[in-house]
């Protein structure tokens, strides 16, 4: 088993001011998420958030091969957003990233802000925006729901990796071509994103079959008829 995890940045890759900047961005985002997330919380949310955080922690250890000599794994931004909404989903993912950095040496301590920004903020937000834009499709049929979950998973992975490229453009330590780095980072995460999309769709599909009412994306707003996606 590998100890390194996709999109978990180590210490030293970004300079100190950039690390501080993204630490501040992450702190502001988490404060906002805690404030706004309260309205999304009901009886089901806390147990689901706990179980999802544990599931994501376990799945982030399960690296699957994507190219010769390269692996990837589910990171869960879109899954968290689809099941819990963007705010609570984001908090849930942050718990995973923080515990990995503090107790498992997985992701640097100075890079924690960048890692939270990429995964809990950018990835979760991008996955949710895609899912929200296609919510009509997700509600229409099971195939629609799975397709939307796949697409949200794919986009969230690419968005999180693009976040790293922006951070590197601001305060990367090595003198490398930014265009070349962007191509490699985003390119490999587009491939990993296919796996992310497949696992996101499988997980959402499994929950839709037994408890569609747990899926935030299809149960909120006017159409509170989640049973439609279970058939």
């Amino acid at each position, binding site marked *: *088993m*590998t*100890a*390194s*995890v*996709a*999109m*978990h*940045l*180590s*210490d*030293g*890759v970004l300079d100190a001011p950039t690390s501080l900047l993204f630490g501040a961005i992450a702190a502001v985002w988490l404060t906002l998420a*805690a404030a706004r*997330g*309260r*309205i999304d*919380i009901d*009886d089901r*949310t*806390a*147990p689901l958030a*706990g*179980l*999802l*955080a*544990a599931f994501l*922690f*376990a799945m982030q*250890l*399960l*690296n699957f*091969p994507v190219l010769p*000599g*390269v*692996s*990837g*794994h589910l990171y869960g931004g879109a899954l968290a957003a689809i099941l819990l909404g963007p705010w*609570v989903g984001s*908090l*849930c993912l942050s*718990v*995973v990233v923080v*515990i990995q950095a503090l*107790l*498992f*040496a997985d992701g640097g*301590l100075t890079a924690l802000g960048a890692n939270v920004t990429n995964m809990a903020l950018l990835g979760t937000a991008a996955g949710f925006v895609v899912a929200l834009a296609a919510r009509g499709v997700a509600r229409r049929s099971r195939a629609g729901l799975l397709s939307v979950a796949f697409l949200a998973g794919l986009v969230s992975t690419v968005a999180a990796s693009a976040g*790293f490229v922006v951070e590197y453009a601001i305060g990367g*330590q*090595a003198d*490398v071509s930014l265009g*070349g*780095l962007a191509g*490699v*980072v985003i390119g*490999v*995460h587009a491939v*990993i994103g296919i796996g992310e999309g497949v696992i996101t769709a499988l997980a959402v599909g499994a929950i839709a079959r*037994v408890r569609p009412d747990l899926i935030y994306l299809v149960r909120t707003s006017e159409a509170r008829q989640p049973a439609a996606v279970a058939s």
Partner: protein
Amino acid sequence: MTASTRRLALLAAVVIGVLAVGVSAFASAAPDGLEWALRDGCSESSGELRGTCPAQHEREHALGDYALGSTGLAAGAGAALVLLLAWGGVALLRGRGARE
């Protein structure tokens, strides 16, 4: 929590435990996507990165050997910890919201 939710939560906890403790031992040991991309431009020779690439600036984690590592049991303990923190944190947020 309803009986149905309790059953589902129990089943999910068992699946997570199996994933964390057992199946994770079979995960690919190849570098992950980011680590691989950060090494682009370098070649590895006797443990050292030669050339120019972002990974050359990576520093050892501050926790060093004190980190819990990634054995199956540590992974299981980590999964249990994040379960408690996320569950408790969200429950706390809800409680605070209800009081306001």
